[in-house]
Structure formats: structure tokens, C-alpha cells
């Protein structure tokens, strides 16, 4: 641990001793002005909202992370229509993620930034990585994130006129709404005897 105290705090939570990638991660985080965290061999560098594009330029030019792997988002949200609720309360936000890699040693860094849950807006990466085009279109239609400077934020997957952002947690999954779960049916109980041999689902 040779990094500044603020970064060490973030990293130390999951990794008791220094991960072999820690130094590299801290180097990247320092250069882009963010904080690094290593979870299960995945370097995640959290950058502030306004340093988003600059961070990618720096990563590409200084750290040779030229390979644009993907861009997507996570909807952190306490109220959910589909799936399970979170085990603990979180701050409601969108977390935007990109993963860059280099083409020599196989280093990869996931960059992350938090977006406001009400009005998620972020500058587009399309000038830095041409491949961000489709990924941003996907994130736009799936999460409703606006990418400033993107030339064409039309629907990529969904038909024109589709309303809503399917990957938001508040978007109900219709196939699970219209049909009752067959597993709900229970064996008819004996009169006045509750069923006991139902295993937990």
C-alpha cells in the first residue's frame, strides 16, 4: 500500500492484503483523478462525472488502454418492480461503466461514474472511442441516459415508438406479469391438516 490514504480506504475494504494489480490501479486512478478499487481481479476506477471523457482520453493515451470493450450501466434503486429487492438500502443513482483494455499485457480497467437518478446526462465518448456509438445507443434506450454530443441516439434494439427504458428496475417484465407462476399452486391440503412437506422454494 503505497498510495494516498483516501484511495487505500476504498481498496482495503475488500482486499486485506495488497492485490498484485493494486499499484497499477492506483496509478491509473491518480492519472485520471479518481479512486481505484479492486474486486475479484477487476479494477474499477471511479471518476467524477465531469472528468468522464478526460479520464478515457488519459487512459487511452497514457496507459495504452486502446481496446474499447463495452459500456453499460447499473440502475441502483431501492424500489423494484421486478426481481428481488436489494438486501440493503443504496443511494439511488445510475452507475455508468466502461471497460478498456490494452492489447499487449492484457490489463483491463473498468471506469465508473455515478449519474443522477432523475436526469442522467453525460458527455458522449464517441470522439474518444468510435466503438462507443452503439453501446451508448443501447444504454440510452435501456436506461434513458442521455449522451451529449452523440450524433444519433435512435433506438438500437427496440422498435420505434417503444416507451420506457427496459433495464431500469422500475420497468416491469411483462412476461412474468401476465402468467401466474405454476409453482405457486400447492398440493391441496388434507382437511384440517396443513401441508408440511413442502420444501422451501
Amino acid at each position, binding site marked *: 500500500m503505497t498510495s494516498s490514504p483516501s484511495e487505500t480506504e476504498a481498496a482495503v475494504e475488500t482486499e486485506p492484503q495488497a492485490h498484485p494489480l493494486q499499484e497499477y490501479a492506483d496509478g491509473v486512478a491518480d492519472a485520471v483523478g479518481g479512486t481505484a478499487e479492486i474486486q475479484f481481479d477487476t479494477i474499477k476506477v471511479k471518476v467524477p462525472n465531469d472528468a468522464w471523457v478526460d479520464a478515457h482520453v488519459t487512459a487511452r493515451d497514457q496507459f495504452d488502454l486502446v481496446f*474499447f470493450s463495452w459500456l453499460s450501466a447499473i440502475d441502483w434503486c431501492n424500489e423494484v418492480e421486478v426481481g428481488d429487492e436489494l438486501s440493503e438500502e443504496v443511494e439511488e443513482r445510475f452507475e455508468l461503466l466502461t*471497460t478498456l483494455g490494452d492489447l499487449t499485457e492484457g490489463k483491463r480497467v473498468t471506469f465508473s461514474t455515478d449519474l443522477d437518478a432523475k436526469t442522467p446526462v453525460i458527455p458522449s465518448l464517441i470522439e474518444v472511442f468510435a466503438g462507443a456509438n452503439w453501446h451508448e445507443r443501447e444504454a440510452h434506450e435501456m436506461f434513458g441516459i442521455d449522451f451529449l454530443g452523440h450524433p444519433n441516439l435512435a433506438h438500437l434494439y427496440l*422498435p420505434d415508438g417503444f416507451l420506457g427504458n427496459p433495464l431500469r428496475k422500475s420497468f416491469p417484465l411483462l412476461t412474468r406479469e401476465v402468467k401466474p407462476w405454476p409453482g405457486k399452486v400447492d398440493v391441496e391440503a388434507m382437511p384440517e391438516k396443513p401441508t408440511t412437506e413442502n420444501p422451501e422454494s
Partner: protein
Amino acid sequence: MTINSDTMRHLSEAQVSVELETEDMTLNIGPQHPSTHGVLRLVARIDGERAFDVQPVIGYMHRGYEKICEVRTYPQITTIINRIDWVSGYANEIPFIVAAEKLMEVEVPERAQYIRLILTEMARISSHLIFMASYPLELGAATPLFFALRERERVLDLLESVTGGRFHPNFNRIGGVKPAAGAGPTMKKTSQDLPANFLPETRSAMDRVMEVCDELEDLVAGNEIILARTRGVGVIPVEVAAAYGLSGPNLRASGVPFDLRKIEDYLPYDRFEFDVITGENGDCWDRWHCRLQEIRESGKIIQQAIDDIPSGDLLAKVPKLIKVPKGETYVRAENPKGEMGYYLVSDGKDGPYRLKIRSASFSNLSILPWVLEGVLVPDIIAIMGSLDFVLGDVDR
């Protein structure tokens, strides 16, 4: 009357200026078209035989897997994700399972890892053989299709004899591989290994695959027409390929020896000798040839793995009801089509909170507008085919 050179030049210029005024035509290739591998649609503006401003339209096969995975449990998700790229269904399961194992910190038994590796390489061979089959077809030669598919059938039969599924094996479990691969009376509780003569038969099947590689090379590689159609067509330089996230053989054809099998540790590839195949120019020919060579390399890996496959358990000790602890990780693997990765976000439940699926074909296809600018109509097909995408992998 004498014509001096000035007059000649004048005349030729005049000819240019009175050239016929032509009108561009919008050609809609797909979504139902013989060589769009499913339901890709290209909207191209063409001037004669030359295409400009080609815009791919995708989404006709979007099945919303990322959403569906949020309401499925971990064992259920493997059934879905091997339908993403159905040509190499087995290989799709690996990165997801490895990601979940990472979060659970499960140690996978050696034998299970070797079985995974052998089957992954078999999936790679079958996927590349599909490309060997379909690519000449797109250039007009129908016969290589049957040669390649015949061998693919052999490989798929072997894959099926282990997993029970030809396309959708659903064979990996968190902590190893499926303990009971089929079912028969009283088979359930006993652990069930590879079929008795699977390994020797795989060995001979690999020999046969090598033979068919030679056959395909004779039939296709030396063919002057194929060379004329593919050499120098659809050249993708490394920088552009990287910026668009091109991966797998498409990236290596541009000359980068970048293979996740050598870099990541999701399967014990470091124990085997194999070469990373690279191309020279990044054209269609290189992409074809890279894949052909990769079949041979995969065959080599399989032979080595059969040589020293250890005996032992197939499944680590895992709880019956799988709950993955809180955490996030990204695991990527070298799939036949390229980098396949899963960003798994778990919050401690029996299903993921969010599963981002990074599929290779999606990024591979996104380069189309760039690479198809100003090419001839036949080359659209040649270039598109050489990228070897599967629409299920694009649309997810």
C-alpha cells in the same frame, strides 16, 4: 485534321463533364436475406455497384436477456446464456460460471476444468467450421459448406454425447460441471463422468478435423477466385479495430497477437502449447485464414488436454441452493467470436442484481459502417461474412 494533345485532354474533360447524371438508389439488404445470418438489415445507398453510407439496423432478435437474467436464479441463467451465441453455446457459459465462482470463491476441481477446456475448444472448432462453411457460400462456392458441416457434425455429436445437448449444452454448474449429464433409472444420485470412449473418439475426430482442414485449404485457400475476392478487401487497421472493440480472430487478423486464452486465467490454458494466430493485413483473407489455423491450434490443445486429463471430482462442494455473495466482477473469455464477458453484480441473492453481457459479435458488427464505406456490393457480403457474427450474439 490533326488533333494535338491539348485537344485530346479537352475532349476527355468534356466527356467527364457530360457524364450521365445518375441517381443513388437505397438498397435494403435484409432483414430477410440469404447472407445476413438471420435478421440483420443493412440500409445502403448505392451508386451503381458502389455502396455508401451503409447503416446496419439490428434488434430484430433482441430477446432482452439482460432483463430476463435479473429474474432468474443462477442455475437457470446458464440455460439462457448458451442461447446468446448458439453456434458456440458451450463457450458462452464459461465466463458467467467463472464470474459466479469468483464471487463465491469456489475452487473448481482439476478434472472439471479440463473437461470445460476440452469442450470449449470443441465449441470453438464447431463455430469456426460454421464459418468455414458459410463464408465460401457467401462468395458463391457451395461445396465447402458440406465438408465443414460434416466434420462439425462429428464434433457436435461428441459434445452431445457428454452434455446431452448439441447447441445448448447447459453443462456447467457453479463449482464444476454437471454431475448427472443424462438420466436413467438410479442414475440420479451417482456422479456421472465422461462417456467411456469419449476421449479416444475425440482424438480420432480431431485427426479427421485436421484432415478436413487440409481439404478445405485445397478447395478454398489456393483458389485464385477466392484470393481475388478476399485479398485486400475490407482491410481493418489495428487502431480502428481496437477503438471499435473488435476482438477474437477479427482483431488478430489485423496483426495483434492478443488472445485472452494466454492472458486471463479462466481455464488452465497456460499448461498447453499453442500458437496465437495472427494475420498480416487485416483483410477478409486474413480473417478466413486465421480461423482455419485456429481450428488446428484448438485441435492441438485438445490432444494435449486428453493426454494429461486428471481423474477426480467433477463438482466442488457447493450449497444446494446457490446464493452468490455481494460483489461485482468482470470476467472475459476468448470465445470463438471474440471477447465474451459478463459483468456480474450480485447483492447476495439467488439471482444476479445486474448482468451485463458483453458479446463479441455486437462490437464486431459495429464496425460495419466504417468498413463498408465505398465498397462494391459483392464486397459488402464478403466483408460482412468475414466478420463471422451471429445475430443472437449481436442482439442478445
